[in-house]
């Protein structure tokens, strides 16, 4: 048996042995899910300032917003989140505040690993929560990046897309790729095979590689029949230790980019928007108080933004812990009162039709995850 035949066979037998999946509920149509990884730690108190909290203004003198968009008497939105605010007005976006993965040690790299891995602690898994969910549901996913991020690992049916720009090269020959694939083993063989599949697919290669263009393309891909059901995009540079700005400035610029990414997803998804959920994920929030250099340091809880046609009623979902000194985690950070894993689990439940208990055990590797589905999707 050649290696290629072997790969084909294992793919097929996996498909047969794993279907039907236990816990699959068919009363709702399957949706699609997109995760925007906000790298560096989004400042939840800047993105969604709790304007009704009496402690906010004094904590954030230099970086407080002068003109937040009012969501309700207690919460505002950063003025750069224009499109998101319109989605909220239409009942197609929600906010989860004072939320985090249960991780309090303020390291980017442990935090980033944990929010993608979703196991019991940082660096405890080599697969990611979305990858494991897709593996259970037997549905495909795609990352819009050069590497396959941890969050999508764990399924045979995931790949990545980030069009090459190598002068003096052309689209690789399918036959040559096959020969090279056969010479390789394990994950390299699988990845070379993915190159071959992409070449055969006539995938477009002239897409600009900024997050906005990639989000639009991802939306288009997810809206086509047989396309990926999940996508992952990264937006960098939220780590604003110094001079983060307020209405304008570096943190606001990142929020503006995030807003444009959400908007581009919507454009790309077209009619599929009605079956979509987009959620943000960040490794931690930032200190409640501004530091000595006009920025904020690594903190604990942040905010999660959810958008998509699968949301019926816009809400701010929060059990607000307060910003008074005594209410802060270690007297410095916003406390997390909602486990963001539960929010991710609810999105998976809605989109992939998997049962909550199954998601808890097989996706987040714990039996204790609370179900937040009704807060988000009812």
């Amino acid at each position, binding site marked *: 048996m050649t290696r290629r035949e072997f790969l084909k066979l294992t793919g097929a037998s996996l498909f047969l042995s794993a279907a039907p999946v236990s816990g699959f509920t068919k009363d709702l149509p399957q949706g699609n899910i997109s995760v925007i990884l906000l790298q560096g730690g989004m400042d939840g108190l800047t993105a969604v300032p709790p304007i009704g909290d009496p402690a906010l203004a004094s904590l954030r003198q230099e970086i407080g917003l002068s003109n937040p968009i009012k969501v309700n008497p207690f919460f505002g939105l950063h003025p750069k989140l224009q499109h998101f605010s319109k989605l909220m007005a239409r009942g197609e976006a929600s906010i989860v505040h004072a939320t985090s993965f249960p991780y309090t040690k303020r390291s980017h790299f442990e935090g980033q690993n944990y929010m993608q891995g979703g196991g019991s602690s940082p660096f405890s898994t080599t697969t990611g929560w979305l990858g494991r969910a897709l593996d259970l549901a037997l549905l495909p996913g795609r990352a819009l990046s050069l590497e396959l991020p941890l969050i999508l690992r764990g399924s045979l049916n995931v790949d990545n897309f980030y069009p090459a720009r190598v002068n003096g*090269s052309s689209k690789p020959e399918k036959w040559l790729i096959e020969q*090279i694939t056969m010479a390789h083993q394990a994950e390299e063989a699988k990845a070379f095979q993915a190159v071959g599949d992409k070449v055969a697919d006539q995938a477009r290669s002239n897409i600009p590689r900024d997050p906005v263009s990639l989000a639009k393309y991802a939306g288009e891909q997810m809206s086509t029949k047989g396309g990926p059901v999940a996508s992952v995009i990264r937006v960098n540079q939220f780590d604003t230790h110094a001079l983060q700005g307020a209405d304008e400035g570096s943190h606001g610029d990142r929020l503006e980019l995030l807003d444009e990414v959400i908007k581009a997803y919507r454009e790309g998804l077209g009619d599929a928007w009605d079956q979509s959920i987009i959620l943000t994920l960040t490794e931690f929030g930032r200190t409640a108080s501004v530091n000595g*250099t006009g920025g904020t340091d690594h903190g604990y809880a942040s905010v999660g933004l959810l958008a998509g046609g699968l949301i019926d009623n816009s809400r701010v979902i929060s059990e607000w812990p307060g910003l008074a000194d005594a209410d802060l985690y270690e007297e410095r950070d916003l406390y997390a009162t909602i486990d963001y894993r539960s929010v991710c689990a609810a999105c998976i439940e809605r989109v992939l039709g998997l049962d909550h208990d199954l998601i808890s055990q097989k996706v987040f590797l714990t039996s204790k995850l609370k179900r937040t589905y009704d807060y988000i999707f009812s």
Partner: protein
Amino acid sequence: MTESFRVAQKIGLLFRPEDDIPRDIKDWAMGQLSTESKSIGIKSISNSHQIEHWPEDYLPSLSERAEMLRQLRLYEDRIQKDKTLSKIEMDRLLWINEKKNNIRFLDELRFAHRNVYAEDQVKQRFSLFWSNHFTVGISGTTRGLIGHFMDAAILDNLNGSFSNMLYKVTTHPAMLTYLDNIYSVGENSERAIQCRKNNKCKVGLNDNLGRELLELHTVSPAANYTESDIRATAQVLAGWGTIVDKPQLEKFGLFNHWDAFVSNRAEPGTKLVLGKAIYAGKDGLHNLTEHLASHEHTQRHLARKLCQHFVSDDVQSVDIEYIMKIWQQSGGDLRKIHQAVIERAIASKAPKFQWPAIWLFQVLRISDSTYFLGWGDIHKDLNDRRMSAKKVFQELGQPFWAKRQPNGYSSSKSYWISGEFLERRLRFSEAIYNTAHPQFTPKEMMDRIGVNSATRNLVEGLSGRKRKFIALMCSPELMGVQGG
């Protein structure tokens, strides 16, 4: 692969056509650590066999770089604010300013040349390992400093103690700028007290560098340090660093850029970091880096990283223990530590996956290809299909001059395996074949390297020299995923 090539692939950059293949590879590798390091390369691709020293003009000192950065910003600002200029005139003037004052593009090309033409290939590999361990990405003025950092903080200190390198790295303006320490002011410093009194300025502590000094550069989270350790580290660091493109020398007249400790910004009093008392004053940082350098968790953390980068993808604890033992016995002598790494890399028959950038250098060296432009070419419009060094490294996924995270590039093989990453290998192989005029045929290379039968079968089963070239470079053997 022959034993010489197998070892050179793991810890070096493989042999160029003019290199003699060493008989005793271990002896060669150890000797490499003492080889003199020179900035060599080519002036022009039209005279690609003339390998020579880079001109002195392109090797500016730190203070020359500071002045270039100052000029770069000054003229940038002046040109952009000039309302009388047309768009075309403005772009032209900005371009001239970049050519004259932005050293970054030359630094990046010089980095590529060093690796492609290096006679000190093993040193270059260790140098890149440490440059990545102590990542400095682009942030503000660091674009003009990264090249200097790699040469003067890393390569020049490769044969000293780890403690010395750590101190040099921590106090280099590139690092102090990249991780925001230049903004950090002790909360009880003279400056902060004055600010509070006048109510005119707001200053305070920034813990970015302090945190990464513990987490990434030394003890790692395994040491179970606390938030109070991080804060104390940031307090020791407060006062270190200055914004290099401002004329600080004229203003203060007291310190040079690499020894910039501003005492009125420093935090007074004794700090406690991981149980060690660090006294106030400039020497405090020295005491701290020495303490961290000799910490067992630092040794373990770094021994593991070295093993993963040089010895085997599946890190063995016996290798880690061995390197730790040498570390302790030698008091953190980097030459001894590197020798220990070489010993374990030779002893381990396990394959070692190579980073995309290392692989590219190795491909160019064994095929004798001229892929990167010469230093005299980069500001010319050559009408050539070649990419700039900047674009090459971006496309490979390893832009060392980029806005990037301080944890550096992973040495874990699985990170680098994806469809897109492997498509880059296919495409770069083709681009090198098409544009860089490899002087060796695939057959000549296979004979010289002594490839295994699987590689030979793959290549010989294909028709056409280009296909053979691509397949050879993307073979498991040349990628370092299967034993030679």
